[in-house]
């Protein structure tokens, strides 16, 4: 199958959607499909030479709680049109088509089987309430909608009309499942360890709650240590840790991908005390794949990944006492940890890209009709602004009406 994927965010910036598109494209290529990507970038020369096409530079604008890449205009439209013509795709897959970006442009220009994936960034959706009806005529062209989580699906149903099938984000399970542990911090060596990963100076990531819980945990398990990994201000963290906890908190700083996997394989318990705002718990899937038993806040996205507590422990968000009890119990119960670890590895397999990409492929195959023709680009720019010439069905329909 010839597949065209549109990524509306700058390829050379780190971001969940970019990684998602990159991994999906790679996996589909591995399955024997021809995949092309159209994306904006800050530095076009930084793009891979093959299978990735530069869509233009973008102007970042705040959208839905994060920065979207605003990109509109005749040059971008011409690039998108050429990409569509030269690609001769059987299906075009647009990611996050709602912001005014190259994704929406492609929706305006392309005709034929179109699939779209909705990644929700945050809960702030006031803008979407206003913007949704404006772009609705173009969203109507999407033949198959995918949402990455129940939350993203709800956002889509409420603001953009229509329904979506839920296909979760993928993870490459193997690099997390197997490999070395962090030297000196191997599981079972020294005291029990609790892992935290994320921007530790962002309150919504919930580290303060975890620090408060640690007092009780340390009372029950005097050798327990909290390992903090991620970006942030180290001095701020040191100041936030009460003196009696200092010997029990270790800051690892930012980790490379390989070290992150080793970290998740090393910790006795992984803790995600987040207070709000995660639309998809990719880190939890990585922890599951690494076989780390998990204690997490009961956010919708986390509850979905942990199958409502079947493959990890859920505690009320922001409740330090409950978190301390859950962590303490789990550290005291090696059998339960082994059980959660085994179940977690099993559950993570369902999120492996090989599984997820096949599910996306099933969507493509449902939308593409045998002999139905592929994606074409409409001919003139007028279509972007109003109705294109060959698109005036009105004419025959009107004539029929007039005759009646």
């Amino acid at each position, binding site marked *: 199958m010839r597949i065209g994927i549109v990524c509306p965010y700058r390829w050379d910036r780190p971001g969940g959607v970019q990684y998602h598109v990159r991994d999906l494209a790679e996996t589909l290529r591995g399955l024997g499909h021809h995949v092309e990507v159209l994306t904006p970038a800050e530095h076009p020369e930084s793009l891979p030479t093959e299978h990735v096409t530069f869509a233009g530079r973008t102007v970042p604008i705040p959208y839905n709680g994060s920065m979207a890449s605003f990109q509109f205009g005749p040059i971008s439209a011409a690039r998108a049109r050429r990409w569509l013509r030269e690609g001769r795709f059987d299906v075009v897959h647009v990611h996050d088509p709602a912001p005014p970006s190259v994704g929406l442009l492609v929706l305006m220009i392309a005709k034929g089987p179109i699939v779209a994936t909705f990644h929700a960034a945050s809960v702030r959706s006031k803008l979407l309430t206003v913007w949704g009806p404006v772009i609705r005529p173009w969203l*109507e062209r999407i033949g198959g909608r995918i949402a990455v989580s129940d939350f993203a699906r709800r956002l889509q149903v409420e603001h953009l009309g229509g329904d979506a099938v839920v296909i979760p984000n993928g993870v490459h399970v193997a690099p997390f499942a197997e490999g070395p542990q962090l030297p000196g911090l191997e599981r079972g060596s020294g005291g029990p360890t609790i892992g935290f990963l994320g921007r530790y100076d962002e309150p919504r990531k919930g580290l303060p709650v975890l620090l408060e819980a640690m007092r009780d945990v340390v009372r029950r398990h005097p050798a327990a240590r909290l390992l903090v990994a991620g970006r942030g201000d180290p001095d701020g963290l040191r100041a936030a840790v009460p003196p009696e906890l200092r010997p029990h908190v270790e800051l690892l700083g930012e980790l490379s991908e390989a070290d992150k996997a080793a970290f998740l394989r090393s910790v006795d318990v992984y803790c995600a005390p987040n207070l709000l705002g995660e639309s998809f718990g990719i880190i939890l899937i990585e922890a599951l794949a690494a076989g780390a038993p998990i204690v997490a806040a009961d956010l919708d996205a986390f509850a979905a990944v942990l199958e409502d507590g079947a493959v990890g422990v859920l505690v009320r968000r922001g409740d330090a006492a409950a978190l301390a009890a859950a962590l303490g119990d789990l550290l005291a119960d090696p059998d339960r940890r082994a059980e959660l670890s085994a179940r977690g590895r099993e559950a993570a397999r369902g999120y492996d890209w090989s599984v997820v990409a096949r599910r996306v492929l099933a969507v493509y195959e449902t939308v593409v009709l045998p002999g139905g023709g592929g994606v074409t680009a409409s001919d003139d720019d007028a279509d972007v602004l109003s109705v294109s010439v060959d*698109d005036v*069905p*009105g004419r025959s329909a009107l004539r029929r009406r007039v005759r009646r």
Partner: protein
Amino acid sequence: MDLSVWATVVGVVVLLLAAWTAWTLARLRRLEGRVDRARTALETQLRRRAALADEVARSGAAVLEPERTARLARAASGARLPWTPDREQAENVLGRELRELLRDLPGMPPALAADLAGTAQRVVLARRFYNDAVRDTRELRGRRLSRVLRLHGRRPLPRYFDIDDSYDELAGTAGSGRS
């Protein structure tokens, strides 16, 4: 106000109305195409499911009691009805038969079981996309102005296709993010 101002105002309103009408007609025509394509996709998947059920009925004749085989074959033939509530009923019967069959017959050839599970998954997708297209169409046709102008012409209002296509219990859906 004199006449020319009124004429201008009326002219502008008529122009706007004409532009809106042309635009909405284009949308309606595109939606009609989408509904047709989605219906074809759904029909294809439903027929494939019926054909598989037929195959199961034939290949399983030795293991299954004859009454059950007959029931399965009858259910499969129901999937050839035109699109009416009867068809939905028939598809529900077939879906139930297949679900029970997979539960009672673990020794089914793996290839056939995988085919059935794959088709069940695609029925879910195709039906979701079809109903999605129908919803978009009905929403646009339900607008007051498109109703008053009867922009849909003589096209019939597309119907939702409602069947129970749950298949979670018959396919391993670990991490399916089910709703």
